[in-house]
């Protein structure tokens, strides 16, 4: 022992003092540790959620790109369909395959009107001919055909 150290009897003041000090420090440390752990867990959970969100956003972005691709392809197909339906194309096909097509004769077409359980078919040369409507699915069409 020298003047810088002083041995005291730990069994006298220090031990008792230490014992008196230890309960509240330990408690404080434990509480702080608990709080820090909870905060840390919250951070981790949030980071995990963010990571998941990011992953889903990436997948959504990929799917969005695929949808855009598909929409572009649909647009191309619609355009192709419009080209195929054009008169120049249809006429060319008729000539190519030598199809014997002709316009429909109006006498082949009848328009039907429903009159409360009866069906009226216009006569070719004016007037109506009414017959009982035996069909439950008789169509009601407007004159003109357009």
């Amino acid at each position, binding site marked *: 022992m020298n003047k810088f150290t002083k041995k005291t009897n730990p069994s006298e003041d220090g031990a008792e003092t230490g014992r008196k000090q230890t309960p509240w420090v330990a408690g404080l440390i434990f509480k702080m540790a608990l709080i820090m752990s909870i905060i840390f867990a919250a951070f981790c959970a949030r980071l995990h959620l963010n990571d998941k969100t990011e992953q889903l956003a990436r997948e959504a972005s990929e799917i969005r790109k695929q949808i855009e691709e598909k929409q572009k392809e649909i647009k191309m197909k619609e355009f192709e369909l419009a080209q195929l339906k054009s008169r120049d194309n249809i006429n060319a096909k008729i000539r190519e395959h030598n199809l014997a097509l002709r316009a429909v004769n109006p*006498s082949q077409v009848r328009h039907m009107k429903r009159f409360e359980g009866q069906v009226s078919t216009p006569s070719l040369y004016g007037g109506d001919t009414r017959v009982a409507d035996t069909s439950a699915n008789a169509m009601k069409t407007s004159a*003109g055909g357009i």
Partner: protein
Amino acid sequence: MTLFRSMAIRMALVYILLICGFCYVSSVLYAVQIKRHDELFGKAQNTYTTRIETHGTRGEIFDFGGSLLVGNIPTMDIIGDPANIYILNKKDKDRTETECRMIADFFEKECENVKSDEIFRRLSRRSFTTKDKDGNEIEQDCHYAVIATGVDYQTAKRLKERVKELSFHGISFTGSYRRKYPKDTMLANILGLANFSADKFIPVQGIERSLNDAMTATSGSMVFERARNGRHVTFANSRNEPTLDGYDIFLTIREPLQAIVEEELDLMCERVKPHAAWAILVDPETGDVLAAAQRPTFNPNDRNTMTQESSTNRLSELALEPGSIMKPFVISYALDKGFVTPGTMVDCEQGVWKYAGRLLHDTHNVGKVPVTEVIKQSSNIGTAKVSVMMGAKNLDAALRSFGFGQKTGIQLKPETSGIFRPLEKWDSLSVSRFCIGQGIAVSPLQLARAYCMIANGGYKVDLRIVDRIERGDDVRVMPVVREKKSIFANPTTKKMITDMMIGVTEAGGTCTEAAIEGFHVAGKTGTAQKVINGAYSNRYYASFVGFVPAEKPKFVLLVTCDDPTVGSRYGGSASGPTFKAIAERALKYMYVQPQMSREEWLAERSAAQKALHERKVREDALVQARREARDRQLKEQQAKQTSKKNGTTVASRPSSGSKSSTVRR
């Protein structure tokens, strides 16, 4: 000093140091987080916030049934980054020039309208000189060089794969759209076209231009925070201003009817080889333009076919003197107001009549005929006499009531309102000329609209070419604008004028070529001299306009040839057959039942032929009798003169007839 005391001092020093440190950190925190918060937050935002402009797509154009007429086709632009062009993993400058050449050659082979030398020149330009804000010249890297634009989407996808395989670096593909017209020349003059420049569509003419505001998409933006790798940070703040696509336009045009009109117009052009031609098919009840075709025309997908002649929209922009097709308007007004009846006799002066010091001619000599025959035989003199009887004020009222001098309300720009002088500027000749379609200029649309008014019983109706516009669930239908009151005060006027016009396509009329089996066709021919360099020429507008079935019309059809050069120049011969062909096919398409059987139709026509023959016989007999009477009179006069010379007198016989040229009410 005891140990405890020295420890205490040390601890106090540590505490003081910690407190000082804590204070220092707090002050720095305060300075950064509180005092400079706005400045630093702004800097951080600028660094890590990205704003992307988003663009909607331009509206497309469809026919009434939803068939695509004008669409947006996805394409890709190929862009090079000259500062970063390299192949494989080497970035050596000398090698880069070789690689630029390889890339340029590759794209010349794969893309249309791309020249290797030009691409090489663009890719070789790695930097450019510019001035900073102080005016000093600085050199900056060039990161943008256009290689090809508007490349077909499928082709661009394939090229993208190839570029990846070949390890070309510094080449990027950006999506874009181009305007495409899948029907080529169909309806081209009406649809117009739009150019794509600097990421914007610039409308040039037609529907593309007149409905540009509705079709233009609104831009939006996405503002978001990004990570260091540029990725969008989802959980951070973001703001999204949505884009709105442009409205899709649905026209009143029916594609099948349009195809019919275009085909028959082509056949007419082959037959009579006119300078130009047009046809328009309109629903008289609603004013819907069901079809409208013109020649010459152009292909909007191929700008080489666009010339001034081929791209003009003659239907709305051209004002022409219509000729005889104006006559029914004057006669119908005269009938309605009671100036004449169908049986009122009009002396057509055998084809030559002097009025206000100028001669007026008919194409063939017509004598005294009822008003019905004036229309049927298209007598200029007969119409002029009726008009003179009505007076200038009534004629002006008549023509204006049919919409001449006004626009038709159609959604096409530009549209001419024609040339129709106000009443105070008329001269003495105007009353006899305007009624026969001279001295007044009208557009084909105005003529079509006026005939719709005759066909629907006198109700003024605005023409429509746009039926509705749609954007998702937002559908807006263009209203049918139709007057509630007819211009015909007399309910029988429509029947009277229609019966007269039916006579045009019957025996003795000016256009039997337009007759359609099983139907009554009401029509009028017109052969109008073209005004060239301020004077009437020997070139003509040959027109036929009509509606069928006459009693309850499904459509009004106007067909006009501008200067037919082969065959007859008359409206009935040049345009009549085309009218018949279009009308027949249109009636079949619309499933319109014939009004009568073939036998009944033939019987009607032969009865009309017989009546015509009998009338001709009577007229010939009358002419013969007059000629004989005139000869007799002449002989008597000669005998008188001879006897005077010889000194004897001869009793004179009263003359058997006298000429008179009065119009009786």
